[in-house]
């Protein structure tokens, strides 16, 4: 487990990605807690905003899933619980495979921002907007929440 995380830490040093602005362990002494800053994808309502992700790696990693959360009250997204920041993503749950690494997860989360799935909602109202195919309201409501929490 240690060697794996060390390797991922090394890889994260040379990480260059359009949407991952920073991917760092909170302290270099303890590589089990990471913080990640991502940028909203360009053609999504989240563009021009940055989000902080908190990643906690369990002792049994990579056989079990790391725990990923957004900051509470910062991410209005159909598959993210607004109050707690929990994320509903299949690869963070049943479809986890030990081959995935932290960077992959973060990329999957960025992808999720672009491709919300209203069939497994954690934010019911936003998911309903998508279900009713009310994209205008969806975009406006998200930008309201983003601007409101930024204040």
């Amino acid at each position, binding site marked *: 487990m240690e060697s794996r995380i060390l*390797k991922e830490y090394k890889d994260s040093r040379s990480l260059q990605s359009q949407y991952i602005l920073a991917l760092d362990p909170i302290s270099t002494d303890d590589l089990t807690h990471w913080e990640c800053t991502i940028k909203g994808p360009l053609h999504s309502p989240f563009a021009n905003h940055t989000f902080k992700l908190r990643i906690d790696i369990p002792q*049994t990693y990579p*056989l079990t899933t790391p725990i990923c959360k957004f900051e509470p009250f910062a991410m209005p997204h159909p598959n993210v619980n607004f109050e707690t920041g929990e994320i509903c993503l299949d690869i963070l749950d049943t479809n986890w*495979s*030990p*081959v995935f690494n932290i960077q992959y997860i973060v990329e999957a989360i960025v992808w999720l921002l672009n491709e919300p799935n209203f069939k497994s909602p954690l934010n019911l109202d936003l998911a309903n907007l998508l279900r009713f195919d009310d994209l205008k309201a969806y975009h406006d409501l998200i930008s309201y929440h983003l601007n409101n929490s930024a204040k």
Partner: protein
Amino acid sequence: MNSTIIEKLPYLNQTSHYILGGRSVVAKLINTPYRLLLALFDAVKLQFWEQSNTDEFFIGQRWILNTIGFFFSSYGVICFITSILLNRFVLLSSIRSRRSNTNNTTILPSRLRFVLHFSVTLLLSIILFQPLLNSNLLSYPHRLFIVFTLSYIVETVVAISSNQIPLEGSDYSIFELSLQFYILKTMKVNITNSPELLADCMVAIASRIIIHFVEMFNTRKSRLLMSTCLNMTYLGFLMYRMSKNGFFSIPISIIFRHFPKLFSLFIVIASFTCYLLACAVRFNPTAFKLQNLQDLKFYSFMNNWSKHLNFNGDEDFSTIINKLAILLYLGTDNKDKNLNNEFPYVNVPLEINKLFTISSYLNFNIEGDEEIMDEETIIAEWGNGVHNNTSLLTKFIKFLKKCIANPNQLGNEATFSDDTQVDIDEKAYMTEINDTILSNDDDDDNDFNYLPDFNEEENIDDDDYDSDLDDISQDDSLYIMNALDLISPNTTILHSKKNLDWYLSTREIFSKHLQSQSRLTRSKYSTIKLNNSSESTFEENADDLSCAVCKANQRNIIFWPCKCFAVCEDCRISLSLRNYNSCICCRRPVNGYTKLQTK
């Protein structure tokens, strides 16, 4: 008359109790129901005690009484108060650490920690040696229990306040002990009469002493060792008592508590003995060493059992021994299923990465089982395509003209015009390929076998072909490039991805072959590919064949039927222990695996 009834039934006389003093009407109105209630309560209580002292109870009733009584006994009360206190404390600290969001929760000075632990250790040792000092042990369980709870409180509070997880004993919890002592009390069993019980209590105390000792000197890692010694001693004692007095002389509570351990220990010892015997069989007296140990199914597990067990050293004996027994048992339980079904080794003559850089051909075979069967038809299709297509024919005629203009190429021309044999035994060819790869045969003559269509389409002898190629100058290769266009299939038969892959993989080898000055052998091809790093996607990972899971060992397991080559033996075992049944790369169900042996 009146007085006799009240004398007989004293609970009817409640005149001394009242809520409101005085003799007013209001006071009477309130006091009378109160006294009635009191009388009723006392009557029930009296009846209860009288009944409970007789033996007329059913077992069920006795059991219910014991259960209710436990909650009001001193043991029960202490147990619940302590647990609620500790629970609150842990919760509060976790809330506060979340609130502050950093690690600056109050940490006790190390001196205070030491003093707390030391004083509790002192108390525990006094309790531990009390049975040896004097024989008056009527209140021993009670004292023991209180000290035990105190030890729990100190350990939890100190550990939590210094941001550590408190060390717990899985054998003796406060609740279990309180229940046990309570039952002993109600059964009126004297603890001194049963050496097993007394020893059990002493082991409980000793295990707490170990915890405090370990905390005092900050050597949590040595807890397992000490706990093992203690438990082994006690289990030995139990075995001795059992062989002397028989199985049923041991109290049930002790059987429940310690027999799982004993059973696990038995499993572990049995497995290790079997393994050692298997090793002994492989002992080669002439060379004086053990041979082929890695062939043993449990070889990797036994080498890395501590890793699979996933322990830090601060656990206690019983958790570890039970876990180990379960691991060993699981190994046989899932035998021949999924990740545990082993096929024979694949022996790889070269280093792994070389094999993979060479084999564009092998790579595209990693598509699935059915594909191998299909290839026969693919080749046939292609052959048909070559023959039926008219545009191809015109090209061929052009090529013929060019060849006639340049008589040097007549040999090649002949080979192409011979192109009639479509009937290709692909299966036989596949086995040939595998033989060459697997048989560690690096002979140059066989190397051309990885160019299947080459041989078959052109239908030439190896020897002829070799001599031809050796003669070809750089300029002449132009014509062969044309020939390449010629045999390249028409776009209509590239409709399926399979065909395209096939075409691309062979075409690449073919073109490399034409570009090289002399005869292209497998090793030369691999060096060319290594130099052109941009061409191969595999190239980036060529130096990284470390296991995809642990990133520490080299990969040496292939899963079937998906043929994914991603993990090492250790990780395969960890995965199978966690009931992963599908391939970690492609999620297809796995029905077996093969170990790769590099030499």
